[in-house]
């Protein structure tokens, strides 16, 4: 397998990647690619489909590189519909990822926000760290990485909004009830979930949250990914932020 080292393909040298396997669940697909990537969990790559758009994706595995895509618009729809042999073009990784800490971490992922967290769980497990992985989904048929987390020897807990599998409710419920049992919190999910996490953690416990905004340039110049009011850029200062820096800069949630 070709190894795409960190930053190898910034700039005009996109890396051509071939889809080797597709694993589709509802409107979400895991795309396995024929390259590997050195990346810090939480960092993102820019995925370009010539003729369509370029979108940011936080890998859910690094070797081989895997991206986990939810169809929300035209580019992600095309990605979810891909078949083995299809090609896409990648540059990156960009941004700041999660800080790996020993202790007893809790990982809370909502929707495709679970993607960078399962990679983080893998990297933490490689360090000998054991934690709890909580995944929230609208319903059981898009359960993504529970199996993988269990295979790492971790506890893994599923919440579904419709209660069709696992616990019924939101993954932040788990956080609320069990906060005291952990030494650090990592979260990635839709905005309301992230806010809830920030509200629950405040500066009481080391907490990092990956934020999503519309990323256009990916390199900190266009300003489209600003976290409103804070002056922080998702693509350059994030996507992973410490809870305290977000709150200090006036992000609502504290």
């Amino acid at each position, binding site marked *: 397998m070709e190894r795409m080292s960190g930053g190898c393909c910034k700039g005009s040298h996109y890396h051509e990647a071939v889809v080797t396997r597709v694993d589709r669940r509802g409107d979400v697909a895991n795309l396995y690619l024929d390259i590997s990537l050195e990346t810090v969990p939480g960092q993102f790559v820019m995925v370009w489909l010539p003729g369509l758009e370029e979108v940011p994706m936080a890998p859910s595995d690094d070797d081989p590189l895997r991206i986990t895509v939810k169809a929300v618009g035209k580019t992600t729809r095309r990605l979810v519909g891909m078949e083995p042999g299809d090609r896409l073009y990648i540059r990156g990784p960009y941004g700041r990822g999660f800080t790996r800490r020993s202790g007893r971490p809790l990982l809370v992922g909502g929707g495709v926000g679970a993607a960078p967290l399962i990679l983080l769980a893998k990297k933490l497990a490689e360090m000998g760290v054991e934690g709890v992985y909580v995944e929230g989904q609208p319903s059981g048929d898009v359960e993504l990485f529970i199996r993988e987390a269990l295979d790492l020897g971790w506890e893994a807990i599923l919440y579904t909004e419709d209660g069709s599998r696992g616990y019924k409710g939101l993954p932040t419920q788990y956080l609320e009830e069990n906060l005291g049992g952990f030494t650090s919190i990592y979260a990635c999910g839709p905005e309301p979930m992230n806010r809830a996490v920030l509200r629950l953690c405040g500066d009481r416990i080391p907490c990092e949250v990956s934020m999503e905004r519309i990323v256009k340039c990916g390199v900190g*110049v266009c300003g489209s990914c600003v976290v409103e009011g804070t002056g922080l850029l998702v693509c350059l200062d994030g996507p992973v932020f410490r809870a305290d820096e977000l709150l200090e800069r006036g992000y609502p949630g504290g």
Partner: protein
Amino acid sequence: MARDLSTRLGSLSLRNPLVLASGFIGSDESLLRRAWEAGFGAVTTKSLTPKPRKGYDPPIVVDLGYGYLNAVGLANPGIEYLPRLLSLLPQEAVVILSIAGATPQDFRHCAEVGVENNVDAIELNLSCPHVKGLGMDIVEDVGYSLDIIEEVVSLGRPVYVKLGLTDTYMELVARSLDRGVEGFTVMNTVKGLAIDIESGWPILTNVYGGLSGPAIHPIALRMVHEIYGEYRVPIIGTGGVTGWREAVAMLYAGASAVGIGSYLFNRRVESIGDILKGIQQHMERKGFKDIASMVGYSHHR
């Protein structure tokens, strides 16, 4: 003893010669505040147009290693956003409002909003190379550019004309000085193309984009040198300043202030402190007592 970096740009007093170039984190109030706090002598807003513009779809930038291409498509929140855009800046911040449009009336309207909101200077973006009807087609037409300039100068604020690389910029300089322009921002990007050889596609969704960064530094330096050599006017030297060395060269060529744009690709804005420090150390080493004595220094040689 650290040298004082304060300087004058035409009628403006700057705490240092570094000016945030238009198009870089200048369309959001919290980012503009952050830029000011990072230490710029002045900040230029993203070019604002009468109506908000969505801009082009990504890819909108290409990192070439020796420069960048961009086709942002003048994405901006529109001139009506100006009060909000300025709302988080402290009183003492020096703000240059960049405006763009298709007609003299567009420019006049935007400039009027600027005057109402008390901006320190108005920069006319006549030279964006990748947006039809809002760009190079204007600046290549000296007569039309002058119509725009007259409309805006009449409002009584300091006006800077942002030049692109055209056959006629020296003529435009001469004739816009006659109209009362205070100075020039030199330069905008140069139209270019990048093709991905893996897919065979032009990388930018808009196909063509504007070249910036190191690649254009020698061109910007030349334009500044020519204009200063002939007219000794205030110039914001912009183009490929990606370190203190290029900033010093810009001052030597004749710029009174130095625009910082592509330096910010992949860099936190706080890192402009390195450029300021480099300039200061150079001044100490060479015995320059202030910024003014470096402006145009290569012409005295």
